[in-house]
């Protein structure tokens, strides 16, 4: 009994790590652009497709495919960032919603047009099960947890110490003041967006081996899983997002075991409703972004 609970918590941490890497990008983009990026799941999908393409068409090894997936997505993000996201800075909230939803539709349907809507089989990655402390996990899941940790420590260090990170924090606090002291807000917005999209792509490529299937519509589900997480974490709050992702992952896993798999997807939105009722700023104060 106790062992089952522990095992489910570990399962939860694995899915939580995936959510965390995707959500952290979305929350940073919100911090800087003040817009919820409804296309975020599509970058997750693009990253996976990039890697799948590299493996399927060029027979490249998985680690190379990871790099290709992330870099391709970052390049697409440069284009979308220049033409769409930069224009959202300072625009009303509706503009952000429409622009990102539009971007989501275009990206998703372009992929469906080019590769067809059917599921593709992702053959890369390290799927052999290994036993650790009595739990059996695919090697890839351990990799996901490790990469998740590295990403978060890296981001913490970046926003605390690097010039770019400090500028991101500044922009998320007050755009006008940043403009006055000479921070190029549009430049920072672009880079935050590219970083966020790249992280979503990384998460997609890392999970592809355990999720096996790759298809054009896969990003939508991720966007809707991520949305409650970033709101719970306090929009724009990196640490809060990490904790909220873990809570959601573990809660989902326990619900799937003890209540029923069919109730799993309700967890995110049910928790979100509770949080909005009692702590509308998220579980962690959104006062100090990042």
């Amino acid at each position, binding site marked *: 009994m106790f062992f*089952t609970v522990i*095992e*489910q918590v570990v*399962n939860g941490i*694995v*899915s939580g790590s995936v959510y965390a890497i995707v959500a952290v990008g979305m929350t940073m983009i919100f911090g800087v652009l003040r817009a919820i990026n409804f296309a975020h799941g599509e970058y997750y999908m693009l990253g996976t497709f990039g890697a799948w393409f590299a493996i399927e068409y060029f027979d490249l090894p998985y680690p190379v495919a990871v790099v290709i997936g992330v870099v391709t997505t970052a390049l697409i993000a440069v284009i979308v960032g220049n033409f769409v996201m930069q224009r959202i800075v300072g625009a009303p909230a509706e503009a952000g919603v429409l622009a990102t939803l539009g971007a989501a539709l275009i990206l998703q349907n372009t992929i*469906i047009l080019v590769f*067809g*809507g*059917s*599921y593709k*089989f992702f053959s890369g990655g390290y*799927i052999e*099960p290994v036993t650790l402390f009595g739990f*059996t*996990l*695919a090697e890839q899941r351990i990799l996901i947890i490790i990469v998740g940790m590295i990403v978060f420590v890296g981001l913490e260090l970046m926003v605390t110490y690097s010039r770019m990170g400090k500028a991101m924090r500044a922009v998320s606090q007050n755009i006008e003041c940043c403009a006055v002291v000479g921070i190029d807000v549009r430049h920072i917005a672009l880079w935050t967006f590219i970083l966020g999209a790249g992280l979503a792509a990384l998460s997609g490529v890392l*999970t592809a081996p*355990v*999720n*096996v*299937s790759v*298809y*054009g*519509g*896969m990003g939508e*589900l991720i966007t809707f899983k991520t949305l409650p997480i970033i709101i719970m974490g306090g929009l724009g709050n990196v640490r809060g997002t990490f904790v909220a992702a873990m809570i959601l992952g573990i809660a*989902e*896993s*326990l619900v*799937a*075991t003890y209540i*029923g*798999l*069919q109730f*799993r*997807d309700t967890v995110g939105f049910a928790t979100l409703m509770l949080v909005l009722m009692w702590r509308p700023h998220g579980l962690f104060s959104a006062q100090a972004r990042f």
Partner: protein
Amino acid sequence: MTIELSRRGFCIGTALIGLQTVSSSAFAARSEDGTVRLGLVAPMSGPNARYGSFSMRGAQMAAKEINSVGGVGGRKINILPGDSQGTPVEGVSATRRLIDQDHVDFIIGDVSSSVTLAMQPVAEDAGVLLLNAASSNPKITYKAGVGGFKWTYRNYPTDENRALIVLQYAAEKKGFTKYAVLSVDTDYGRAAIEFTKKYLPRFKSQILTEDYYKEGEVDFRSVLSKIRDSGAQAIIMYGNADSTPIVGRQMMEVGIAGKIPLIGNAEFNTASTIKAAPKALEGAIEAAAWLPAYESEKSKAFVEKFTAEYREAPNNHAYVHWETVHLLARAIEEAQSIDREKVRSALSNIHYTSAVGEVTFDDHNQARLPMILLEIENGKPAIKGAYSAEIDYPK
């Protein structure tokens, strides 16, 4: 006042005349067109897009074969696709578009039972023949023919048959009595389990855990560990083909692959699925309407031609749509017209030889068809026989 009224009347009148001209010219275009306008509603995108693309290819191949020998009664078959995305809402609007804008005379669709159930009243209102080729929920033909919907026909076996056949094989040949349920959360997945439950007492069996997954679900680890600890001897799964490789992989992870087999129907026999998780699929038992390994001359010729054409082996949905387009063409030929009423009565009286046997329809417009039972042995599907059963319609 009176002037204004008549002005308004004039405006409305003009508008009506305009509308009439438009619609009559559309009608003229349709009859002059000289083709059989056939709508195909299938999930072309979304989590079931794989089914849609196979369905479309199967249907198109059939249309090509028919058109290359001059069509039916001199008319070429023109397939107009409608994307249901596997959801009832989109399925209904796709059906409306096909009827109102594309002016189709016949519709084949959908794959998902939930969608077909929603399409039935739409087709009925329009008086357009809805010939289903791939939905297995028994309710569809409970409600058709003498059951109500005169324009719905189904050329596909139902879940009630399937549930019984699978359970019987598992109990008698394998000696299973304890099951876990992991099915898709749709009309298809839930109804199949309902019928399974109906027959459980007959085989002195019981269900220990019951879970339904949402389409597109990717994390089955929690539920699979629960099943591992429950003491179940097999997992009853009526699910989506695309989820099967994911489940298989995660069965290997939690250590139940090769110990607790999957039984039911979710394309366990597809080569790429077996390749994704060979150990988990070994011993899987499935009842299917058709599979590429089926031994008959017509079936083998179809597999060969389809594989040559699309460089991919066909699945069940490709086959049933291919066969159903041919069936419809035969009905049109026998009716000697594309008049919907005549084609419908031709269909009711048809004796058509398909790749799995003779097709006739009962008074609920349900085709009498066998189910093929197979088991995965050494990574290959082995056919264990074809079974059929008469359906008990609820009175």
